[in-house]
């Protein structure tokens, strides 16, 4: 033991530990402060990302095949259910088109070029996931080249699932709302109840055990019911307005009885991420 911790070795070990801790803190500071990582890091990530696609493609293909087989087994029931939904959807679509045209005309009258609800959707495939207990983070195959910027919201299927935490040229990392990191799920959201009143707030935590989003510190006295729709409010940052987050499950007092706490059932499915959509806000 004495030989192992000889003087010179001890000094080297301590210097290494100090360097590592300094590097860790530096990278956290850089990640929090800058909108893009240093060029050399981007370059490295891009190259590794390309190589990853070679491995990820067959593995994801296998997953796709397995899902296709299990999907085939309950096709009939799903088909029945979807048929009824399609009819409703066509109506909504036509109405949506009319409304958006009307909206465009009205904006023109007001000479308003873009508002909070304007965004374009960039579809990306998930390449892989960080193997770590501490980070819920996935890597997607679109980056700066497709107009993605840091902190943009990411949607999967129906609803919000996370935000962009790092952008490289051709791939980026997405922190899911279930991540431990404090800033991962702070989205400004808005709940509209049956009588048209709105409650604004910020997502305060993610309940991993029940898979629920929690909006805490709500002081508004507006009554909220189960099933009220939750959308992003577009206040602050690069999140556009009107992205679907989920529906209200319960609304009641928080643990201390001072403010109320709204529990939201997320619409996005965190457990099955293959294709995600990044909402790119228009400048």
């Amino acid at each position, binding site marked *: 033991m004495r030989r192992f911790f000889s003087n010179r070795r001890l000094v080297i070990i301590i210097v290494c530990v100090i360097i590592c801790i300094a590097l860790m803190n530096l*990278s956290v500071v850089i*990640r929090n402060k800058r909108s893009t990582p240093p060029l050399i890091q981007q370059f490295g990530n891009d190259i590794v990302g390309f190589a990853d696609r070679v491995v990820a493609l067959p*593995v994801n293909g*296998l997953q796709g095949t397995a899902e296709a087989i299990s999907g085939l087994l309950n096709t009939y029931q799903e088909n029945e259910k979807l048929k009824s939904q399609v009819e409703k959807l066509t109506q909504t679509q036509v109405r949506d088109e009319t409304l958006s045209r009307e909206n465009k005309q009205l904006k023109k009258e007001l000479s308003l070029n873009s508002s909070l609800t304007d965004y374009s959707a960039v579809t990306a495939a998930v390449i892989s*996931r960080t*193997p770590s*207990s501490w980070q819920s983070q996935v890597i997607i195959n679109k980056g700066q080249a497709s107009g993605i910027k840091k902190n943009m919201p990411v949607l999967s299927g129906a609803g919000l699932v996370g935000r962009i935490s*790092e952008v490289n040229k051709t791939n980026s990392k997405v922190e899911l709302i279930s991540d431990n990191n404090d800033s991962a799920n702070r989205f400004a959201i808005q709940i509209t109840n049956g009588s048209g009143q709105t409650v604004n707030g910020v997502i305060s935590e993610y309940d991993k055990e029940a898979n629920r989003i929690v909006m805490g510190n709500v002081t508004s006295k507006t009554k909220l019911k189960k099933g009220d729709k939750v959308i992003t409010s577009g206040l602050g940052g690069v999140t556009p307005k009107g992205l679907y987050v989920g529906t209200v499950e319960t609304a009641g007092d928080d643990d201390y009885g001072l403010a109320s706490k709204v529990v939201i059932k997320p619409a996005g499915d965190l457990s099955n991420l293959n294709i995600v959509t990044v909402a790119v806000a228009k400048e």
Partner: protein
Amino acid sequence: MLRLSKLRYGFPIGLFLFFFLDGSLSKVFSNQMFSYPYTMVSYLVVLWLVCAAFFEGTIAIPLIPWAIAMGVIFDLYYTGIFGIFIAIFPLIIMLTRTLIRALPQTFLMNLLIFFIDITVVATLSYIGNSIIHQASLTASEFLLYSLAPTLAYNLAMFVILYFPIQALYGRLR
């Protein structure tokens, strides 16, 4: 001599394959591996590095430089936080080589060495992430919810892959 062996291609290809499989398996089996509160972390890249130390024999692969390079890539590509795995991977190689010298080379002893390696990797990654406030578990929660499932998964992988990798090294030598 690595220069004359087929391992000079086989080792890096396997290393990168296992590195990318870590991410891909975590993605495909994310429901099973990250079902709250348990988290299994795939360390196949550590498995490959440790197996290289077991089977290299007289070839002497420069494992420590490779481990540092892999640590850099792991940090940059997967976690985005620099400085954790760049230190852990070479440390694991040194630890494994010390233990190989101390213990007889049998399957069970190698399993024991790998058990120690994974424990060290998971614990150091927990300590590192605690320093920068990324990990919020307490030590006992870490043992129960993170370390135990991680060990179970990685040891199972070791048992499955040990003999195939040994055979592969026999052929590439």
